[in-house]
């Protein structure tokens, strides 16, 4: 008999709780007994309202915030086992915070992207390779790399900042609202870069976003949070087929899903778990073909 290999999750969150400003009138429970796991080679989306605890959660993955209770396991080991080593965790779990372009500081884009790898103590050649590779993921060319980051457009700045985290080659890449405030073309180029990174490295990618349409388009697996708790998890088919539950907790659902749900309610025989325009087109064409 061959031994059964149990596949370990990349990140496991075990009974994690966190309270902000404990003991003051501003006390808020940010996370309440959270359990979940994050897998490699997959884009996991975290959905929820502002204040649902998702921003606190993502800052726990790389040890910026330490849980009051519970454990965060990376490859099965508690990241707070030895608090002095938390710096190493930050190289393995890269975090792109909201509006990351406000952290750019170097004279050139190139130097800014190299900041993380330099802190890792890598040698010059390796740093150079990583800078050009990661600039490539997000679609920045040599021309932009030599510029001052402050001469780039808003969308380019954002991409440079994201490349700066990718250049550490993290095994887990966490992005908090990576496309917020960008126009549709800007959003698309950010997400394309993220997908390229995942495909090339096999990393576990975690995206937090308010845009249901982006989440439906790019995420393989979804975690829905509400009131400091995990409300629902599952692959996107499962989550979006429960769209009425999402609406109940006040979240939007993709327009297309809304159309299909309304059609179902009107007695038309179509699937509710449709969240892309292409799938909806296919399903409806079939329906019309059937009618005629």
């Amino acid at each position, binding site marked *: 008999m061959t031994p059964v290999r149990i596949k370990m999750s990349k990140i496991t969150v075990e009974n994690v709780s966190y309270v902000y*400003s404990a003991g*003051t009138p*501003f006390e808020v429970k940010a996370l309440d007994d959270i359990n979940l796991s994050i897998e490699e080679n997959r884009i996991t989306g975290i959905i929820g309202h502002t204040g649902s605890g998702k921003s606190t959660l993502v*800052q726990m993955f*790389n040890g*910026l915030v330490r849980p009051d209770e519970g454990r965060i396991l990376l490859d099965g080991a508690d990241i707070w086992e030895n608090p002095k080593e938390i*710096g190493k965790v*930050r*190289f393995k779990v*890269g*975090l*792109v*915070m909201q509006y*990351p372009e*406000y*952290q*750019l*500081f170097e004279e050139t884009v190139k130097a800014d992207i190299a*900041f*993380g790898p330099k*802190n*890792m103590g890598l040698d010059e050649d390796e740093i150079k390779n990583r800078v050009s590779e990661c600039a490539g993921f997000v679609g920045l060319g040599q021309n932009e790399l030599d510029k001052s980051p*402050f001469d780039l457009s808003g969308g380019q700045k954002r991409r440079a900042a994201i490349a*700066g*985290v990718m250049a*550490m080659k993290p095994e887990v890449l966490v992005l908090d609202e990576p496309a917020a405030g960008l126009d549709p073309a800007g959003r698309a180029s950010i997400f394309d870069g993220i997908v390229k990174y995942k495909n090339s490295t096999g990393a576990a990618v975690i995206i937090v976003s308010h845009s249901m349409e982006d989440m439906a388009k790019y995420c393989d697996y979804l975690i829905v949070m509400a009131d400091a708790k995990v409300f629902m998890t599952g692959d996107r088919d499962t989550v979006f087929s429960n769209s009425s539950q999402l609406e109940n907790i006040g979240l939007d659902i993709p327009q297309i899903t809304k159309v299909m749900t309304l059609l179902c309610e009107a007695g038309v025989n179509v699937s509710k778990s449709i969240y892309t325009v292409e799938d909806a087109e296919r399903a409806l064409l079939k329906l019309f073909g059937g009618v005629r």
Partner: protein
Amino acid sequence: MKGIVLGQYYPADSVIHRLDPRIKIILALIYIVCSFLCRNIFSFVLLFMSSIVLILVSRIPLKIVFRSLRAIIFIMLFTAVLNVFWTKGEPENLLVSWKFINIYTEGIYNAVFIVVRIVSMIIGSSIFMTYTTTPIQLTDGIERLLSPLKKLHVPVHEFAMMMTIALRFIPIIVEETQKIMSAQKARGADFSSGSLMKRAKALVPVLIPLFISAFRRAGDLATAMTCRCYRGGKGRTKMTVLKCRARDYVMLAVSAAFTAAVVVINIYSFGYTM
């Protein structure tokens, strides 16, 4: 970080909280002057008692008052010790004499007086100003007290506007600093180890984005203010008008009586005088 409280304002409902900020600034000044007028044990006892009365009337918890005094405990001890060793009194009042150290009764008195003076001064001025008055009320009070200076072309309004904007943006900048520090930490920046030089250098990736952002905010704010028809203090009116009420005049009268009492006790009294 939403819990950040500016200054030390303590929200409570007391007579002192409701006083006109201008009056409170004047009262604080009078109180400081009084604490310097005190010369003998009787006036200092009166001063100390008045501080306690102020704490009770303002409904500021003792705990909070002590916390602010703790911050200056070393200064107080230091001045007390200096007074004990340096005051030269009458020869018959010599308490201890050892090698070159001479301690007189006067020195002990002085040390106690000085400590009482500092403590009362701190309690009095902070109860009238920081604990019971919001920073914005204080700014407003200062602007109006100083407004006669406008005639001498002193930019009183501009100064007050700067204070207001600073107060508005301090919490934002504090929050932003933490955000940028977290972002750089996520890229492996280390702010807490190494030599002083190394730590100072590690702050560059925080300070540069912080400055850039502060300038951007300043620019945005200037545009927004222009769009809202701001053109300096000229022709500007105010929604809130400060008005002195009966309680303000009563407090002024009380403080005048207090000052008189201190002066009288200083003149007609006996015992050690500073």
